[in-house]
């Protein structure tokens, strides 16, 4: 295409000369970097003994670093009956107590409280506190699957893994999965290691990345809106549109150069923000063991083998692809509305809509699934929650289907934008 490289270089130069683009990039990159940092900023009060001896304020960062040392010694252990019982013994059995009180009118009220027996004792040292936290995480994981009523001395690993299978089945039925999709997930579940081998460093950088990438994606969308809403309208504002339109390469070559510029800037912004978030996460929280499964840290009922590291890298890759759709959407809107401010208004409105309406009712399965795969909606409920598959020849998970869909959306929006560009200003 004639002079494409030169046009692209100058379009990039035009865009990057705008102070607003740099300001938005800097601010949103700092925000992205700060997202994981917020989990280690602040202090926590750790109780000492009953006399107050050993009471202390400990920074959250120090707690994270101590957790990395795995004082409970869970690293490499299997989640079997022995560990489940050890956990219950350490944490205490859930008991329900009824408390009664009399109000000022003389009426008697009672309410039930479920709590772990022995929980009043409390940890007396920092290591004790962290050990309790490690067992506590494990306890809560098991509790969420088997139910509070089963957290007793009779609970075995077989009970736990059977309850996990039942939870998956219920989950698949709830999401309305077809028999084929269920069979696909069952085949994946057969690959899961049972019993699960634990690693010793919970809630580290990879988990944080997988959970925070969605918010970074919203920052990227915001950046695309700020940076690209004026990409076409600025030619009109600067009264350079006439010069461009009557030039030989003012139609398709210029359109291609501008569109690629928009995609480049949005993608580069996404790389900066994702790198800032991921870098902060890994530096402050540290990476988990490469073998740490999502079933240990994020969702015990997730039905396929997946490590938190692989999940984090997948989610980041998927959201980098989303940056292209964000850019294409903003540019197509700017060509339709022909104004920078109106483009911002429409795109902000769309972003608000995607954030507020993060899911559609399952009673409209196709619509609901299509909505769930939209860039600013995907992953809103957590990256592992939705087990629905897309059936195109074989089965694709959301992580595989979404980038393909977004590529299609980018091309469709590029086509719409091209049609609009060709009409400017001939009407």
């Amino acid at each position: 295409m004639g002079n494409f490289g030169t046009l692209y270089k100058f379009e990039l130069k035009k865009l990057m000369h705008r102070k607003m683009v740099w300001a938005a990039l800097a601010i949103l990159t700092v925000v992205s970097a700060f997202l994981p940092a917020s989990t280690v900023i602040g202090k926590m009060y750790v109780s000492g003994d009953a006399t107050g001896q050993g009471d202390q304020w400990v920074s959250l960062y120090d707690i994270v670093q101590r957790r990395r040392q795995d004082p409970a010694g869970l690293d490499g252990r299997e989640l079997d009956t022995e560990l489940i019982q050890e956990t219950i013994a350490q944490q205490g059995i859930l008991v329900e107590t009824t408390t009664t009180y009399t109000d000022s009118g003389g009426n008697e009220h009672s309410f039930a409280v479920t709590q772990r027996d022995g929980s009043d004792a409390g940890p007396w040292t920092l290591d004790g506190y962290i050990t309790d936290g490690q067992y506590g995480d494990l306890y809560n994981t098991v509790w969420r699957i088997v139910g509070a009523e089963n957290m007793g001395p009779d609970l075995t690993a077989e009970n736990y893994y059977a309850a996990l299978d039942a939870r998956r089945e219920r989950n698949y039925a709830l999401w309305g999965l077809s028999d084929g999709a269920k069979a696909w997930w069952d085949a994946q579940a057969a690959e899961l290691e049972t019993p699960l081998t634990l690693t010793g460093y919970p809630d580290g950088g990879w988990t944080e990345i997988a959970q925070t990438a969605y918010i970074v994606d919203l920052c990227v969308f915001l950046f695309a809106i700020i940076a690209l809403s004026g990409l076409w309208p600025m030619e009109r504002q600067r009264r350079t549109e006439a010069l461009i339109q009557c030039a030989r390469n003012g139609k398709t070559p210029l359109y291609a150069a501008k569109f690629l510029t928009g995609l480049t800037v949005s993608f580069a912004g996404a790389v900066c923000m994702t790198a800032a978030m991921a870098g902060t996460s890994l530096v402050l929280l540290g990476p988990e063991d490469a073998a740490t499964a999502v079933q240990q840290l994020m969702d015990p009922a997730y039905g396929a083998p997946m490590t938190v590291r692989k999940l984090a890298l997948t989610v980041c890759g998927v959201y980098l692809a989303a940056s292209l759709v964000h850019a294409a959407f903003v540019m197509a809107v700017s060509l339709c509305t022909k104004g920078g401010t109106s483009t911002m208004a429409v795109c902000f409105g769309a972003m608000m809509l995607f954030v507020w309406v993060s899911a559609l009712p399952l009673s409209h399965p196709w619509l609901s699934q299509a909505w769930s795969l939209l860039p600013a909606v995907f992953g809103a409920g957590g990256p592992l929650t939705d087990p629905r598959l897309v059936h195109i020849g074989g089965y694709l998970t959301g992580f595989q289907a979404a980038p393909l869909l977004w590529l299609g959306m980018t091309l469709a929006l590029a086509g719409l934008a091209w049609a609009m560009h060709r009409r400017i200003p001939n009407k």
Partner: protein
Amino acid sequence: MELIIDRLSRQFQSKIAVDRVSLRLTPGVTGLLGPNGAGKTTLMRLVCGILKPTAGSVAFDGADVSAEEYRAQLGYLPQDFGYYPDFTGLDFLLYMAALKGLDKTTARRKSLELLDTVGLGDMAKKKVKTYSGGMRQRLGIAQALLNEPKLLILDEPTAGLDPKERVRFRDLIASLGRDSVVLLSTHIVSDVEHIAGRVLIMKAGQIVHDGAWNAHEDLEKFYLAQFGGEEDDG
């Protein structure tokens, strides 16, 4: 080499800006005069393909106005146009050269050559936002000439230039008219009087006068007579 405008019309809601204009322009400078609102700029924008006509057609050497071959032969200086303030004068011309399809070597050579021609050689590396209004106008003229156009549309090319520059550019335009079709719209009747071999006068969207002009006659007097003594302001 000829520009054929055939029953060209453009309507904006209830107002007819250009009304069934038919012209055949051959190499030489053709001056376009008319008061404000006569439809001169609309006619020029139609000829440049920036506006779509309501009816009629424009073709240059058989190429329709919407075709890439047409735009490849076109040079256009709009009456009111902007710049990229952070580009240098040279950057601006190199960008315009890329838009016009010039290869890199030719683009650089032509850009530097034209910057010298319009007296901006020593300002090539300065940002356009530091240029005066007259310098920007000269840069605009330079960009219109980058692709050595066979069809040159100039809307108020000498606006903002000092008298000395105006005379210089009048001569430049006259020389361009030897090999190209030049359509020149201006407020300044004397510009047309000196260099246009043919004069068009527009009124209410129509051509009310189309004829060769003898440089010894007083065009201003003739022009005012067309409008019953109205002063030329467009």
